[in-house]
């Protein structure tokens, strides 16, 4: 157990009161926010923590001798400890603050992979990756003359993993924990184990997993884990890279600047200790504080209850959407996070999204930055309704009613 402050029971109406924006209206209709995979809303405690930081402790960190600087440093480093606690990392040095998942992955591509990548080497990803877990690898592969290969997926959107895909030339296996486009929950532990057995390092893109489940990086056994603050009910602009200490220690810095050095002369610069070596310049201090507050908030939830509630949302949505004529759900994996992506015969997702918006329902339409997935299912774009623990079964009924209107309009 990480925390013992769990509430007695999960009551969604009580939880919703913690999120000011959820009481809002769009086009005179109550907001039904089903775009949580894009970004999540922020509980009041996060907003308060950010405001309090700027009002009471605002200062630059680490080098100031004055009181405010010490207070700000304590806030920022305190947030790092909260992250370490939350994902059960072995040491605080293994937690690097970044701008988000994308920057975390780019950091590993540049500082870890690039120096060890030789012509003919391979990097393995999967067919269900978000572009942010494809393009950074592609860039370094092109530079090095290495090859980017992928694990294919089946018609339900599940990995067709074969250990043979991990070859003696594979220098890294990077895969998504939960797919943003399909909702598929990948067997991360097993995938990591297969890679480790061959001495292949792993990076897990946890952007979509972190909002739905407790993460335990040591249990997963991965070398790197990346996630974003704004998807776990914290602010935008802050993210996390977890990396195993031995690996981070051996890596050159990602960016040069202040904070990441020990001593600079014009002849040579000595890098700072972990994790500061990877945090050049003034970081998003308030963002880290906000993320820390978000994790504190998540720590008060009963996660067994959260899981059950989200499973109920997914079950209701899957069942109700299946009854709509011409609607096809894309991504029907056995193990799925609470999101539903679909295609509606004869109606373009853009039109669906527009009409839903008029009903107060916010969904995502487009390719979800996962064009290989769209290609795999032969659609240019889809509509995605993605849920968070603060969504209600009644909101799914609003979604279904709005989709029925779409069906009528485009009859």
């Amino acid at each position: 157990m990480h925390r013992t402050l769990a509430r007695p029971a999960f009551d969604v109406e009580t939880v919703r009161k913690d999120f000011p924006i959820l009481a809002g209206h769009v086009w005179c209709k109550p907001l039904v926010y089903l775009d949580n995979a894009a970004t999540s809303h922020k509980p009041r405690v996060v907003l308060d923590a950010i405001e309090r930081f700027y009002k009471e402790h605002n200062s630059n960190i680490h080098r100031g001798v004055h009181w405010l600087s010490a207070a700000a440093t304590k806030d920022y480093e305190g947030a790092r400890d909260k992250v370490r606690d939350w994902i059960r990392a072995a040491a605080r040095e293994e937690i690097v603050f970044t701008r988000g998942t994308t920057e975390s992955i780019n950091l590993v591509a540049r500082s870890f992979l690039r120096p060890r990548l030789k012509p003919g080497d391979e990097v393995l990803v999967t067919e269900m990756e978000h572009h942010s877990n494809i393009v950074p690898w592609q860039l370094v592969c092109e530079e090095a003359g290495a090859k980017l290969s992928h694990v294919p997926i089946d018609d339900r959107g599940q990995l067709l993993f074969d250990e043979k895909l991990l070859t003696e030339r594979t220098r890294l296996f990077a895969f998504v924990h939960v797919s943003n486009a399909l909702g598929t929950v990948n067997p991360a532990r097993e995938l990591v184990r297969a890679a480790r057995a061959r001495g292949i390092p792993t990076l897990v893109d946890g952007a979509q997993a972190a909002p739905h489940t407790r993460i335990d990086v040591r249990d997963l056994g991965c070398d790197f884990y990346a996630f974003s603050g704004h998807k776990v009910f914290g602010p935008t602009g802050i993210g996390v890279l977890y990396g195993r200490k031995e690996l981070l220690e051996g890596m050159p810095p990602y960016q040069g600047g202040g904070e990441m050095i020990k001593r600079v002369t014009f002849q040579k610069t000595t890098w700072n200790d972990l994790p500061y070596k990877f945090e050049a310049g003034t970081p998003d201090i308030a963002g880290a504080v906000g993320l820390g507050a978000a994790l504190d908030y998540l720590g008060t939830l009963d996660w067994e209850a959260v899981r059950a509630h989200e499973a109920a949302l997914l079950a209701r949505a899957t069942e109700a959407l299946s009854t709509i004529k011409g609607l096809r759900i894309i991504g029907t994996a056995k193990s799925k996070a609470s999101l539903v992506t679909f295609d509606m015969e004869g109606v373009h997702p853009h039109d669906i999204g527009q009409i839903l918006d008029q009903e107060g329902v916010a969904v995502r339409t487009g390719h979800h930055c996962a064009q290989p997935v769209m290609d795999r299912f032969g659609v240019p774009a889809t509509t995605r309704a993605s849920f968070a623990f603060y969504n209600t079964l009644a909101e799914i009924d609003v979604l279904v009613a709005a989709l029925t209107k779409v069906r009528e309009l485009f009859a």
Partner: protein
Amino acid sequence: MRELYQELILDHNKKPRNRRAMADATADADGFNPLCGDKIHVFVKVEGDRIADVSFDGIGCAISTASASLMTTSLKGKTLAEAREIFERFHAMVTGEPGAPVDEDALGKLAVFQGVCEFPVRVKCATLAWHTLKAAIERSGDAVTTE
């Protein structure tokens, strides 16, 4: 919502006019809206300074499909100068301030798109076919994007 999805738009989306390839086109071009994955190919046959025929092919949302369809019916037989003027009026309407006066006489059926100006995200959908036609006529030959 009916304000955007007028009957005429829904009709042209369902039964697009002039959606066909043109073997004897004098110019053609590709248009792509990376935001929503819409792809269009516009064909045009210019005789002298007149648009003798115009058609399109491709997939898109209701707004982009209906706009392409109504573009073809509005421009057939027009001179290039007239076509340019219609596009300018159309463009001004969909990018204008909501509630601004619309010259319905000059725009004819195209006035049905006046609701688009309330949804800035959809301007790209409504103008994709037009930008693509313009590129075809200007013989750039390069794919046009709305980005």
